[in-house]
């Protein structure tokens, strides 16, 4: 049974300026000890997806209009707030992009980690603090006994991110979400953080969902990849398959840009659409070189084109023939 399975998830944001369709029929599964990378640009809905899984979607204006999320068989969306809270931090956790603002600036790092043990395991704060020190050591922070007493602003960016990872994996969750965990860091530190996440995953067997716009990072660690555009998953499959031979025109564009091998820079023309005013038919068609009347009229369904590889495009064969 997959660790996490998402079926037909749709999320809307209803605001004064219209309704934004942030997620449209998302289908995903992640297995135990598997790393899934969700690749997309800003506005693709990837952060909304992460927050919906974590359960921190702000409910007005956001609404789940359809679908199911199952964590180890538990239907998350059917839970009441209290039961969901029991799972948050314990069975599902998230590493945020900017550790400086994700920590409470007024409390020591060790305290904030100890808090998780206090809430979920009813451990006294002092004992939790000891566990925190151990965790900080595990994530590679030197001098953890002292560092645990430090405040967030006193740590460097890389160490802060490690501390946040420690906080997230404290209770060894089944699913770890990482929302752009390395974007704010230097390249050298990036590699270290990704290695850390990898080793933790192997150690605990948790499923890692990595959200990023950086294909290189995804290529390094991902087992499976899902490409998101305008709230839909346009291509999904094993990392090797999707990243070496993408079938969706958008995915192809992204990979081409990332590899940067061609002499001329081939950009994907146009801009991502406004989620409250989506184009008719396929959301990508205004920017797609293969677009035709069918694409303008009908939003393509997700089709399985190979083993464990699916695409949402009317013309994936032509697209891949050209690639």
């Amino acid at each position, binding site marked *: 049974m997959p660790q996490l399975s998402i079926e037909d998830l749709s999320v809307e944001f209803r605001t004064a300026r219209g309704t934004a369709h942030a997620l449209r029929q998302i289908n995903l599964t992640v297995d135990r000890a598997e790393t899934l990378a969700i690749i997309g640009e800003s506005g693709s809905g990837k952060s909304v997806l992460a*927050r919906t899984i*974590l*359960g*921190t979607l702000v409910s007005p204006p956001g609404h789940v209009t359809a679908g199911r999320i199952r964590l180890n068989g538990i239907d998350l969306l059917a839970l009441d707030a209290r039961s969901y*809270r*029991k*799972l*948050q*931090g*314990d069975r599902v*956790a*998230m590493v*945020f992009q*900017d550790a400086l*603002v*994700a*920590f*409470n*600036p*007024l*409390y020591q790092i060790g305290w904030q980690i100890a*808090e*998780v043990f206090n*809430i*979920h395991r009813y451990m006294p704060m002092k004992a939790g603090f000891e566990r925190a020190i151990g965790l900080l050591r595990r994530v590679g922070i030197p001098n953890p006994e002292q560092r645990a007493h430090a*405040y967030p*602003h006193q740590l460097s960016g890389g160490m802060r991110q490690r501390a946040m990872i420690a*906080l997230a994996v404290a209770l060894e969750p089944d699913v770890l979400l990482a929302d752009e965990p390395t974007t704010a860091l230097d390249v050298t530190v990036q590699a270290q953080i990704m290695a850390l996440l990898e080793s933790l995953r192997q150690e605990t067997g948790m499923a890692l969902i990595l959200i990023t716009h950086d294909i290189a990072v995804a290529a390094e660690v991902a087992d499976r990849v899902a490409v998101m555009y305008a709230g839909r998953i346009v291509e999904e499959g094993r990392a090797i398959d999707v990243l070496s031979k993408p079938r969706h025109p958008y995915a192809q564009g992204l990979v081409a840009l990332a590899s940067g091998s061609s002499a001329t820079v081939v950009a994907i023309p146009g801009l991502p659409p406004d989620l409250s005013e989506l184009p008719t038919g396929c959301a990508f068609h205004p920017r797609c070189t293969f677009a035709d009347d069918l694409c303008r009229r009908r939003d393509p369904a997700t089709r399985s084109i190979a083993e464990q590889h699916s695409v949402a495009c009317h013309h994936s064969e032509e697209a891949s023939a050209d690639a």
Partner: protein
Amino acid sequence: MAIFAIVGRRLGQSLLSLLFLVTAVFFIARMTGDPGQLYLPLDATPEAVAQFDKAHGFDQPAYRQFERYAAGIVHLDFGQSLRREAPALDVVFEAFPTTVVLVVATELVALVFSVVAGSLMALRPGSLLDRAGTVLVVAGASLPDFWVALMAILVFSVSLHVLPTSGPGGILHWIMPVGVLSLRAVGSLTQVVRGSTMEILASPYIEAARGRGVGNIRILFFHSLRNAAIPVITLVGIQVAGILNGTVIVETIFGLPGIGRLLVTSILGRDFAVVEATVIVVALTIFAVNIVIDLSYSAIDPRVRA
């Protein structure tokens, strides 16, 4: 160690103003007219006036008087009160506690009310509670305090006979004064608490905490309030001067023997020494309050501690 740094910094900032105040008050007070003439009855002979002036040193040239005054201040001797046969400083200290109680009670009431109301409003923004609360609080803060005091007396004392009109005494005597005085403080405090709490509740670390399963109550008490405290404390510091302003009126109307009323009566009575002593004591008090505020910043926010 850090305490000295904080006090030292405040002293440096305030020294100039304190000196300026001390000098200005001296000269201004003297400008209100010859005390001998004003103090003694109208039909006093010029000789009597001259004698009075001589006895109290008012016949000396201005700079001499200032010398005596300055020397006196350093020894905390403000001279004698003309109205009462007592050192001016004693007179002021006699009135001090009343005002302190008034100000502290007002600020406490305002804090409790505004934290509760402001937090509730922030949790349900745009709701009826929020909108009605904002209207009430803003309206309350915009009312003229002397008028509200009179209205309160009209309603509670004259019509309903529930509360005493004036004078010091038991708790009942303080309800209206504190109530009236706290109106303005509540107005601004509630809005600050509300705004600050809303900003905090929307911030990433609150979302991160929710994502760890931290419950609502814990979020409010541990994560939100402490962060919201910072702008609130700043405001409290600023409000003290405003509340002191209010005491002038409230003490006068409700007959409370505090510093505000003392100031007015001693100005009217040309009691220089007391006027000077009052102003300086108030200035020093505000100085002390500011230091307490600065200290509490360090206590609350680790980013401030160097």
